[in-house]
């Protein structure tokens, strides 16, 4: 058992820094929040650096129509941060759907809801 633990510790020590699955850490406006007025963009922070070419997000209204004002962009100075520009939307419920690829090729996806005008 002791040799197994030593071997495990050695494996961990020899491992080059590596990423993990990129999960949504937090967002602005926060996940599930309700706001009086829609912001011009959403900001999503992830737990790992992202591959811009394979990461994106869409925002849809209750009828499923996209309300993005353009493609989601990974921040030039922070590869864990994604910006999603929004059209000027009215009151209603909106769903944010994101999909990302972390730099070590783990792919994850998710979604959450926002409410405007309440």
């Amino acid at each position, binding site marked *: *058992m002791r040799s*197994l*633990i030593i071997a*495990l510790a050695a*494996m*961990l020590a020899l*491992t080059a820094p*590596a*990423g*993990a*699955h990129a*999960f*949504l*850490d*937090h*967002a602005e406006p*926060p*996940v*599930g*929040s309700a706001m009086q007025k829609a912001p011009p963009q959403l900001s999503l922070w992830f*737990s790992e650096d992202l591959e811009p*070419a*394979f990461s994106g997000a869409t925002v849809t209204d209750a009828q499923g129509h996209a309300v993005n004002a353009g493609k989601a962009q990974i921040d030039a100075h922070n590869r864990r941060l994604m910006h999603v520009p929004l059209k000027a939307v009215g009151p209603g*419920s909106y769903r944010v759907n994101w999909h990302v*690829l972390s730099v*070590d*090729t*783990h*792919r*994850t*996806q*998710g*979604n*959450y*809801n926002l409410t405007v005008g309440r």
Partner: protein
Amino acid sequence: MGRPWLRAGLLALMTYLVPLGSAFAHCVVGNRFFPATLNVDDPCVADELSLPTISSFKTGDDPAARELDISGEFSKRITDRFGVSVGSTWSQLRTPGSPTVSGFQNLETAFQYQLLKDATHEFAMMASLDVEWGGTGASSVGADRFTTTTPTLLFGKGFGDLPAEAGWLRAFAVTGGLGYAIPGSSSTTSTDPDTGDPTATQNPRVLQWGGSLQYSMPYLKSAVVDLGLPDVVNRLVPIVEAQFSTPVGNTIDSGTKTTGTVNPGIIYIGDKYQVGVEAIVPINRDSGGNIGVIGQVHLYLDDIFPNTIGRPLIDTSAIGKGN
């Protein structure tokens, strides 16, 4: 004019050349992450190492023995959908009035195939053929001399697809498993310690069933509502596991009484590991003599070694496919 085509071509080339080793990596299904559970297997093939898992409890024997188990399990994906796991357990038994005995239980392996992962409905299903190799452990700690094979079906279901009005209930998930343990020998012959005569004991075929009810704080924060709780709270998964065994065939000696435990506990989800601890509550006297405890450190090898042992031996997926 040519550059967009060049970029599109390069992206297309990358799509087919860059492997996506973790399309089916540890149990992520859409929004949902199913943590590795301590008693009932989670419903996904994965590259994982559970080391150690330590449990302490009193057996259901009369008189009850104090049993300490220390085990490890290594799970490896061969392809994105097919994996193999190998596990071993060292046991120590302290029985009142008897000398303490210790040794390894039989070697256990599992051959697992990912049948389904439905991201939209947070549903996963896996088939597993579990084999306990008879004669590889010490009979002094109860290791059987015969091999037992257990075909098992495992599933996991998150409730994130409930309507938004369900709110915080969407962070709940359940997992379950149903297996049928088939002993390689219908009976075991031993020598009666009092008379010296040979006696035969029938080995039952056993239905093994159980599951878990879990509440994911990581899910609550990232997919339902961010309450601004401390990070350590946002990484917790309160859980109740339950596992039962019901003899259903060749039950002349064993009877058909169900034994099992209900295990309430909590799992902490780190970036590349998890730590879990649960109480072991026997459902009747035959299942245990008191409330025990189990703890586990579990490493996500696909996150720790994403480019070596953390990816399938035969990579059959590519970016844009799978999951």
